[in-house]
């Protein structure tokens, strides 16, 4: 950039013209800045709000449970990252073992809870 400018000023000086040129790089825009148009990094619900799954928090865990069969939804439906999904599944198993949470039924008290995802529209197609 500065090279071109320097060349330009040289040419104008020979032609006896008064032209305002940018001799220093002071006003030149910085091009080594970060890409301002970069997309925001995707994060799953639990990582975004920094929530940790705990086996005593049955209300949270039952949101990842099917109201029809009581089974745990897969990662392609819940939209969690691999690690969070693993933790959630672990805690659900712990809660079910401790008698806090059903294995075949979701507690009807939690039917009205807001949905974190749409089970009918998985992120990736089902395996079957």
């Amino acid at each position, binding site marked *: 950039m500065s090279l071109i400018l320097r060349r330009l000023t040289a040419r104008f000086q020979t032609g006896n013209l008064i032209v305002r040129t940018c001799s220093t790089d002071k006003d030149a825009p910085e091009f080594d800045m970060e890409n301002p148009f970069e997309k925001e990094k995707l994060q799953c619900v639990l990582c975004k709000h920094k929530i940790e799954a705990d086996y005593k928090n049955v209300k949270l865990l039952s949101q990842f449970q099917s109201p029809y069969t009581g089974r745990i939804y897969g990662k392609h439906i819940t939209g969690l990252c691999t*690690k969070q999904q693993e933790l959630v599944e672990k805690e659900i198993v712990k809660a*079910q073992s401790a*008698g806090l949470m*059903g*294995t075949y039924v979701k507690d009807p008290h939690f039917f009205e809870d807001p949905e974190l995802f749409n089970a009918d529209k998985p*992120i990736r197609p089902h395996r079957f």
Partner: protein
Amino acid sequence: MIAYELMILYRLMPKPELRTALKRTSETIFQKGGIIRKLENLGTRDLPFKISVHGVVYNKADYFLFEFNAPPSSIASLFDEYIRDVDVVRRRLYKKTEPVGFECTLDNEMKPPPYRNDVLNLIEQAKSQQGKPKFEYNTNLDHYPFQK
């Protein structure tokens, strides 16, 4: 000593009996050389499934949570001792979990396959297996002389 959580369900009892049951539970912890940090009453709840213990089927239970520190060697005997108690419907001992720090990898997982880390790892694994030494017969023949 490691921090543990004891999730214990008692059968429905009048208060004085429940008090003695709780005392019994906590005294067994003390006997094994443990310290109780917290005792929480999670209330009377309907069980999500019926539980049959000591020849009785239960549909409701009193939920209690103990947080305690105890030597790991005593955990097996504690666990065994609680189910001998006729008032206990169910008990579970869990190690107290500490928050695990990790980065969310969802952004990477949502990319098309050739950019995903798990797919890249698979490709690398396949590549490393290509250079595996192949068994040679050392017969100086360019074919296998016997029937295969």
